[in-house]
């Protein structure tokens, strides 16, 4: 923004130091900023909405395999992340509250704590994605569209992991690829191929939705960092706190998306047990 003193043409009217040059009264600015964020979040709803619509359609069409596929995700990690993210929303709400009461120091602190929770979330997500990748849940070229192979491999790996957990050992071997291939290749059939592709679709949606969500968190870190810096500089006051309010709206939106993702992706097949 160019300097605020450029409003000289308004013939000496008094201007608040936080008023950007292009707004007339401060109230206009107060009203425009959150409205802009709400409109942006509306476009975000449309953005995620496309993926949720795809999920709804395919879950309806292929409900059995979606439950089956969902069962391969780790509920514990998902639930942990849900708790972490809700805590980050709490700290964000506290940051907004502190900015409204003029407590600049704690505004900045709560914002940084929010980032810390966000980083924890992504840390857990990293562990989870890595595991998903190792058991061939990635629906990329590695996932064979022609046979059941990787799908069966994933199942077997999960079984072996459960087995190892029952025995109380943290380490577990991965199944031999050749065994799985030999077991399943000849008797695969059309149905097997279809089911494999349906499960693949579930994981395509899983990776797209969770990584789009994670991307929003990364953007959030940068924005929260900037706002936190300005908060420490004492830029916000009870008269002017709309940037903090806006980043709060954004963060709560990211949180709400996860609140929907968690049951749709993780809890869908929970009743089937491992």
């Amino acid at each position, binding site marked *: *923004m*160019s300097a605020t003193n*450029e*409003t000289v*043409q*308004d*013939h000496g009217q008094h201007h608040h130091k936080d008023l*950007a*040059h*292009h*707004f*007339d009264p401060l109230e*206009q600015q107060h*009203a*425009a900023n959150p*409205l*802009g964020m709400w*409109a*942006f979040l509306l*476009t975000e709803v449309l953005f995620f909405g496309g993926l949720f619509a795809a999920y709804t359609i395919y879950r309806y069409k292929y409900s059995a395999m979606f439950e089956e596929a969902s069962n391969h995700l780790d509920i514990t990690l998902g639930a942990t992340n849900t708790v972490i993210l809700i805590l980050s929303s709490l700290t964000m709400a506290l940051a907004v509250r502190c900015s409204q009461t003029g407590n600049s120091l704690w505004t900045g602190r709560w914002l940084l704590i929010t980032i810390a929770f966000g980083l924890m979330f992504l840390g857990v997500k990293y562990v989870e994605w890595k595991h998903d990748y190792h058991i061939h849940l990635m629906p990329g070229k590695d996932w064979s569209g022609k046979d059941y192979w990787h799908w069966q491999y994933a199942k077997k790996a999960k079984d072996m992991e459960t087995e190892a957990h029952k025995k109380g050992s943290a380490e577990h071997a991965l199944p031999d690829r050749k065994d799985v291939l030999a077991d399943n290749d000849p008797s695969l059939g059309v149905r097997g191929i279809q089911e494999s592709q349906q499960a693949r679709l579930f994981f395509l949606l899983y990776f797209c939705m969770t990584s789009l969500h994670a991307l929003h968190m990364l953007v959030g870190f940068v924005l929260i960092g900037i706002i936190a810096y300005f908060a420490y500089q004492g830029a916000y006051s009870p008269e002017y706190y709309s940037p903090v309010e806006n980043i709060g709206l954004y963060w709560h939106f990211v949180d709400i998306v996860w609140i929907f993702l968690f049951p749709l992706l993780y809890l869908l097949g929970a009743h089937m047990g491992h």
Partner: protein
Amino acid sequence: MATVSLESKTFDKFPDVVGRHDDTNYLNHDHSITSWLFTLDHKRIGLLYLVTITLMFLLGGALAGAIRLELLTPKGDFLTADTYNKAFTAHGIIMLFFFLIPSIPAVLGNFLVPLMIGAKDVAFPRLNLLSYYLYFAGSVIALTALLLGGVDTGWTFYTPFSSTYSNSYVIVMAVGLFVVGFSSILTGLNFIITVHRMRCPGLTWFRLPLFIWSIYATSVVQLVYIMILPSLGVTSEVIATFSRKNVFGYHIIAFSSIAIAVFGFIVWAHHMFTTGISPYAAMVFSLLTFSVAIPSGIKVFSWLATMYGGSISFDTPMIYAFGFLGLFTIGGLTGLFLSTLGTDIHLHDTYFIVAHFHYIMVGGAIMGYMAGIHYWWPKITGKMYSEFWGKLSAGITFIGFNFTFFPQFILGYLGMPRRYYEYPDEFQVLNVFSTAGASILAIGYSMPLFYMTYSFFFGEKANSNPYGGSTLEWTNTTSPPSPHNFEQTPVVTEEPYHYHGKEAAVVSH
């Protein structure tokens, strides 16, 4: 100019209402490169877009030239089949995503929205600059995809051409379009908030110029119809000013913009009438597609009624607006042929479709854009272009356009499919017509580049309101405007098109 007969000195007829307090304006208050590249001024950002989209238009136009040259003869002798596929894909992508969509909203919208509503800038100037750079980045990525080897799917990217059987740079291109999509979403968002929150005192919703209504509807609904809606807004402004009359049916024109936007949401299956969708679904979508004609027709008849009894002056913007009216009407009426299920089976995927959407997108949207650029050029640059060359280019464009695309209606009706690089001998005569027309059209489109550029440097100085417009950008700012638009925040007490005098008596309020 030697031929004075075409010169009308409209700009002398109207007195300078604002006057000049000093010579500092948004163009000359800072000359440094950084003051342009990092500007937060909506007017300068509009000009950045103007330069960039003009370059994209030239590139897309060159590709159109290559396509028409290939189709000059029945055999494929200029381009190979593969190159031809890539050429028409690149033409479509560049023209739609990098020229038409940003044309009026990003250039004229950016320049005019704050001026027309009496604001100092858009609500979020930094976001506005970000939008421009997202557009720029998207263009660079898309051009990279073209340089790597191009895309051969057609601009619609239908699967499985673009997925399972893709053998070109679809992903790179898709990323480019994704980025440029963000640019238009953020610009739209900026306009929505600006119109909601930044209007000056007294400027109620029903005192907004119709251009603002069109831009608002475009911003809310970002679909195919966004390419034509802004042109409808420009036409409303131009026709009101050059007829010197209050727009007939202001409210209904405003609401018909919203109606086109709403109908635009629910017509998508009209691309799929021949794909074996349920006949009942097809009937519903056919009916909904017909409905788009209602608000469009309302607008056309309202413009005609505005001109009726008005005091019409035939300046360049008005000539372009006339061209728009004719071509948009033909484009709209042929759209009805295509929304009729039975005829669509015959005409689907033929040159009839190509002709139809070029009548809307080129005949309609670009004529509207040209009308707008000519109408607001004195405000944007503070200079008058040559009326003689302006009128000549408008005429040549209109003739060239019809020569290019009217034969394609007949070709399509006779059964020539679109997107083929060879065709049977009996189609050659009409194709030669079309290619010859394209070269006339190219001249028509090139001329403004020269006389507008010339006028920018050497043109006669424009006063604040050379055409006698009645909206805030004419009545309350200098030409070109000062960096902060208004000396004092305007206060609006009247409707936008308040022409007093004998013409006003016809539709007195």
